[in-house]
């Protein structure tokens, strides 16, 4: 067994494989399939200050090598989280990270303050890139000044590891990454979904109730990989890479491009055991290539 331990600021991950928010529920939905504790960390589903019903059905469309979703941050709010979900997830022996969402900076702050009180939540992922909500969401992640401002304000009220999740729907993602770094982000994670659309040619109606939705899955991998590479060159803080990772090889590519850790999203739906397979695959790769530590892999792209 190679040493797969990586660090994301204060977080120590037993291996670089995490799960992407919104694709892994609260973790325990996977207990039947895998040992969740064998992962480096899990990102819980997007949480907001108040209960949200999310968008109307239909929320999903299959696309070539991917899918569109328009869930719209359905969740029961932070009170419910603290009372019903936190007591369960805190029993896991891995890093539990809350994905924090708001429509306004005040909401982001208020929610972060609540999460800050939770002893066993090691970090938050500030989601400024959700394409499926009318207010806030991606608006924060596609404007550099707004991304900086929300990071700055949240930083003031949060002591632990602050990860900012970036939107790929921008001209220059490295600029935004540098912006949030300058305001105290301890890491960036990318990418969130790409804004896409599906039309039913027979009915001439949009497939999704919200017309547009977020594209994820292997289809986006080449673009996500490029963005991770660009961002890793631009910032000093660790980069967490995601977007279409479906195999250990994919995960390794992201790490070679500069990611210190990866998140697996949509592929969890297709193969609920993919995360542990990727941990094994990364280990095999390290052994095969005689890497003592996975850290040798990070940013090892040879130009």
């Amino acid at each position: 067994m190679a040493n797969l331990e990586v660090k994301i600021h204060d977080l120590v991950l037993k291996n670089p494989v995490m799960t992407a928010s919104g694709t892994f529920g609260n973790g325990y939905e996977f207990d039947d399939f895998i040992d969740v504790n064998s992962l480096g960390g899990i990102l819980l589903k997007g949480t907001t200050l108040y209960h949200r019903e999310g968008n109307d059905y239909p929320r999903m469309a299959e696309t070539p090598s991917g899918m569109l979703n328009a869930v719209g941050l359905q969740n029961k709010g932070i009170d419910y989280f603290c009372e019903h979900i936190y007591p369960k997830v805190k029993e896991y022996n891995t890093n539990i990270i809350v994905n924090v969402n708001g429509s306004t900076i005040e909401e982001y702050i208020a929610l972060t303050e609540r999460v800050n009180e939770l002893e066993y939540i090691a970090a938050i992922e500030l989601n400024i890139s959700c394409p499926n909500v009318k207010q806030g969401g991606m608006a924060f992640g596609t404007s550099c000044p707004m991304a900086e401002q929300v990071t700055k304000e949240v930083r003031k009220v949060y002591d632990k590891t602050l990860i900012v999740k970036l939107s790929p729907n921008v001209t220059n993602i490295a600029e935004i990454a540098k912006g949030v770094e300058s305001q105290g982000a301890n890491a960036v994670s990318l990418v969130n979904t790409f804004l896409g659309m599906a039309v039913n040619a027979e009915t001439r109606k949009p497939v999704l109730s919200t017309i547009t939705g977020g594209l994820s899955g292997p289809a986006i991998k080449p673009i996500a990989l490029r963005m991770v590479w660009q961002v890793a060159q631009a910032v000093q803080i660790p980069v967490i890479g995601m977007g279409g990772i479906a195999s250990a090889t994919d995960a390794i590519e992201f790490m070679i491009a500069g990611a210190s850790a990866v998140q697996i999203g949509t592929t969890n739906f297709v193969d609920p055991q993919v995360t542990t397979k990727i941990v094994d695959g990364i280990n095999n790769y390290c052994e095969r290539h005689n890497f003592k530590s996975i850290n040798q892999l990070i940013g090892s792209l040879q130009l």
Partner: protein
Amino acid sequence: MKKEVSDLLVTGNRKLNHDNFLIELKAATQVAEMHPGQFVNVKVDNSPDTYLRRPLSIHDINESSNTFSLLVKVVGEGTKQLSLIKEGETLNVVFPLGNGFKIPAKDEKILLVGGGVGIAPMMHMARESVKNGAEVHILLGARSKIDHILLDEFKDFGYVHITTDDGTLGTKGFVVDHAVFSGKETFNRIHCCGPEPMMKAVARMAKRMNTECEVSLENMMACGFGVCLCCVTKTTEGNKCVCTEGPVFNINDLEWQI
């Protein structure tokens, strides 16, 4: 029953008519633990156009061979590829998923209504209900005579009633036009699966007859086990996942305009 993801051996694939196939799979776990109305989520190999899994109801179980079957109607690329699978090959399946129907008590009288491929979960349901000592009526609706399948098999479990849109078999019309809804017969419960307009029509009848009614929804799914939140339906308690809190719902819990 614990959920699992497994490569299951295909022990049979029988073509029932022009577009329906019955695929039989060997389970490693006890099929007796499967609950009628539950479903599985199947990975379709060999299909470049099929990225996500395809949800399919558990059609029936066979305890002695520890196999269960899927009734597949070919509607697109995924189901087409599935229909081509051969005995001896394997299918990667996540199962069992969802809640399932309420099983009747001894001596209860129930009506199972299946429209189109919505008849799929009804064989398993009929089997378990009969096993429990209930009286089972099965109403099957289809477009035309050639679309009716598995009638003999259903007859093993109760009274089979038939409708066709074009009148080529049984009562002409939709399922709700059948005499079982005339009011002469009363049921403890109606269980229904089929196209949404049909289920709504049946739900309307059930309300009128003051009979408890369960419907099995077929919302589009990405994961099938409650993590993507794509498959929701509106209920009196807000959005619920069809894959975990359904697919079977009591119509009183749904926000249906009926």
